[in-house]
């Protein structure tokens, strides 16, 4: 008997693409109909199913999705950048986003570079730091070229302590600094004595305390699992990390207490983490990086493995071309500003934190974090709709990361450059806003969409593959 016979006698569930009248006449008969909100694909965008070499793109993408889903990101320990990040040296500064030279760096990026050079003792003051940065004596390199990610300016210098995230399923590692908090901080381009002093304290007090605690935990802390829980507690783990930070503190709390003799110092560590709702961001981000790296280099995959900005350029990389950046000018963030600041003060979009959207949370999981839409005066419904829209451009869904408001559906995972081009729907990004001038810091937070041009270029390159 033909397999066609299987449909005979079954209840029909109909997907309607096209005339709404067709959907209506079927639903009038009491049959379940999903009437698509169908739009024609954008003009001149071919439907790519295979690469020129005949590789099945969908199959490649399923491989990528499988690898990301199988990943297990665990906070395995900490270390000093110089000692643990591959390729790091004393005259190297890592930065967020695609490669950039000093002369093209935006204000906050320059501020962070100068601040880091002062912190490292390579320069005594800002003018000296600026001269050194411009002299060619400092090697600038994207975090992403070193298995690292950095929020906002994303500057990592040799002495900075970093978290080490290990993907237990694949054995790869990812790195990220400790989060400094909000306001006038290095990653937003802040400089000055207070910024340097805080960084020093994080190096001499915070890091050793956390490091000792982690060393007492042989299995580390399962950060992927904390993200999954936080998504059920109102976080999307990019722009809202309040629940996740609390969960982290709860997870590390006993170990911190056991490994620290000085109660006052311990209290300051706990206070520091507790007062910084974004402390967890610097764990959420390297988790994304650790999950995505095993997906790099899958031939024929049209899924993004990197999405990152340096405040000047927005860059993406595809799974099938992991070493090639496609860039476009970084976009303007739509958002809410701290008192005395406004849109006029805002720097364009900046930071590696879009690794979260790339890995299937952050803006992709807006529906889990309705509070986020307040940044743009939106409603919880808008948050839900944003996530639903993201399913149109992703190749799969997470299993572990789910959204209660969507009946525990998995978050949209794996941005497919083909879908972005076909639908014209650009990835949703949730982000903080840095002041455009060096030395000032954070001025607000908001949301925006990725710029189209880099997707177009990546799609064109995919067509030629």
């Amino acid at each position, binding site marked *: 008997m033909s397999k066609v016979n299987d*449909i005979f006698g079954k209840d029909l569930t109909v997907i309607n*693409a096209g005339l*709404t009248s067709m959907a209506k006449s079927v639903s009038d008969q009491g049959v379940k109909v999903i009437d698509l909100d169908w739009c024609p694909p954008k003009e001149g965008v071919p439907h790519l199913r295979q690469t020129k070499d005949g590789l099945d793109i969908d199959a490649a993408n399923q491989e990528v999705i499988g690898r990301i889903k199988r990943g297990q990101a665990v906070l395995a320990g900490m270390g000093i950048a110089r000692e643990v990040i591959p390729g790091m040296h004393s005259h190297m500064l890592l930065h967020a986003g695609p490669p950039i030279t000093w002369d093209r760096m935006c204000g906050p990026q320059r501020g962070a570079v100068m601040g880091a050079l002062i912190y490292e003792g390579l320069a005594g003051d800002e003018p000296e730091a600026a001269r050194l940065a411009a002299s060619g004596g400092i090697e600038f390199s994207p975090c992403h070229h070193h298995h690292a990610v950095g929020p906002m300016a994303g500057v990592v210098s040799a002495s900075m302590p970093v978290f080490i995230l290990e993907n237990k399923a694949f054995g790869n590692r990812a790195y990220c600094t400790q989060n400094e908090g909000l306001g006038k901080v290095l990653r937003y381009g802040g400089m000055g004595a207070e910024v340097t002093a805080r960084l020093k304290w994080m190096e001499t007090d915070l890091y050793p305390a956390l490091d000792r605690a982690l060393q007492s935990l042989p299995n580390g802390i399962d950060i992927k699992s904390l993200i999954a829980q936080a998504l059920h507690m109102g976080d999307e783990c990019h722009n809202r990390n309040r629940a996740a930070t609390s969960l982290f503190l709860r997870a590390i709390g006993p170990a911190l207490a056991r490994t620290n003799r000085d109660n006052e110092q311990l209290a300051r560590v706990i206070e520091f983490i507790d007062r910084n709702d974004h402390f967890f961001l610097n764990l959420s981000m390297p988790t994304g990086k650790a999950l995505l790296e095993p997906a790099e280099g899958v031939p024929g995959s049209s899924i993004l493995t990197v999405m990152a900005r340096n405040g000047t350029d927005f860059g993406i990389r595809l799974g099938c071309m992991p070493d090639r950046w496609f860039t476009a000018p970084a976009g303007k963030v739509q958002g809410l500003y701290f008192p005395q600041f406004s849109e006029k003060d805002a720097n364009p979009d900046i930071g590696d934190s879009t690794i979260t959207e790339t890995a299937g949370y952050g803006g992709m999981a807006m529906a889990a974090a309705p509070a986020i839409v307040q940044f743009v005066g939106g409603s919880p419904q808008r948050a839900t709709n944003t996530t639903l829209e993201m399913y149109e451009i992703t190749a799969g869904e997470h299993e572990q990361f789910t959204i209660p408001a969507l009946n525990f559906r998995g978050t949209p995972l794996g941005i497919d450059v083909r879908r972005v081009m076909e639908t014209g729907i650009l990835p949703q990004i949730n982000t903080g806003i840095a002041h455009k001038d060096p030395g000032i810091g954070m001025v607000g937070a908001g949301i925006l969409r990725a710029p189209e041009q880099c997707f177009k270029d990546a799609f064109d390159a995919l067509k030629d593959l």
Partner: protein
Amino acid sequence: MIVRSIVKPSEYHDSVSLMLVARELAGLEGVHDAAVVMATDANKSILAGAGLLTTDIQAAGPNDLVLAVSAVDEPKAVRALGKAQELLKWKASPESAGESRPKSIRSAVSLYPGANLAVISVAGRYAADEAWEALRHGLHVLLFSDNVSLPDEIALKKYGREHGLLLMGPGAGTAILNGVALGFANVLPSGPVGIVSAAGTGLQEVSTLLARAGVGLSQGLGTGGRDLKKEVGGIMMLLALQALQADPATQVLVLISKPPANEVAQAVLTQASASAKPTVVCFLGGELGALEMAPNVIPARTLQECSLLAARAVHPEIGDIQAILKAEKDRLEQHAIVLKEKLQPQQRYLRGLFSGGTLCYEAQVIWKDMQISPVYSNAALQGGLALPDSTKSYGHTAVDLGEEEFTVGRPHPMIDNDLRIRRLLQEARDPETAVILLDVVLGYAAHPDPAVELGPAIRQARSLAYSDGRRLPVVASVTGTDRDPQGLRQTVSALGAAGASICDSNAAAARLAGMIVSA
């Protein structure tokens, strides 16, 4: 009077939305006529006929949306165009802000993993891609869209055959799957007859005639009009036939198609003979010679004969169908004599204005058998004469208003009566018109109440002719059942009240019209 237009390059709206907008515009005060259509050549010629073809529209291409109005003065025209743009924007916005609908088949499937059928009616150039998406996600497909390339159709159907998935179409307007009417289809009782049809209205005509004879349907599967071409090889006809042969609910099979390529006909008949189930085969307009050779195969000349033979296969007590047809013919003869008497000598030609392609074809088969010739058509029989200009009748004419040339970027005449009404009045003004033949198709997806619009139009056509000193017979058949949303009985009585002669089938109506112009 003044005509104003706007061209919106590369703007897409589905044709039903456009129709709704045009209708609202035409109802505005001071507006004579309005059109909101894609600027295809066919639509341009319709606009020209309506006096709405501006130079802007002339220069527009088939991907451009055009809005045109004729109004009493400039402000009224401008206001109407403004209103149109407002309406289009409104139609384009989602139904309710609180609901987000999936935008693609892929995301719909991930949201509703139990989905098992896709109904695709997007513009032809996008249709193949959507059909691929559906098949690859394991969905059966009703591909309503036209303008899908032959290579695409073949590739899709081969994939469907390999994976046991129906790919009904392209251009499949009708299917009844598990009792659910898909596309243009009627409300039918369930029963033992399974139909596979390459012709949508053919499936509707046969299934409704069966229903009226008290015989129900198991499945009604469409294959699209090109399935039995040599290039496609009848892939879907064969797949569907095998499935129905194996289906315990199906006891009698019916196959409907225009005459297939010889080798395809052979393959279909061989497959039909492979089962003991009686199989009525209607290769409309084809030679019946080969059919009589195949065991279990019962050949039918027309859709009407097809339904009678299938009914008899279920209920043998129906007896000799030739006797039934003979009795009907005698009744029609009597009727024709009455109608003929009052015609003027120059009223010599029949004019068939069809919404159903297969019904247009069946009528021509009947006229050929009645030796009424030549008949010109935009959908002529094999070896028939093509109508030089589809927008004008010439001699005996059978025009299929559902042909692609009329439907690109505008609704099908089964949904929108506008085009047919214009044509009806055009024929009424022609002193050579002896009789106008109409098919009226009811059921889901069709116009919610065609009689409300066609009735007054028939009246108007007859009085137009009458004021010119002519009697104008209008003959019609209604394809439908009493359980259709429009109701068979109400439609028949409304059209009858408007002065039309209503016959029980399209074949009977064609015969009556033919008798009126026969010597």
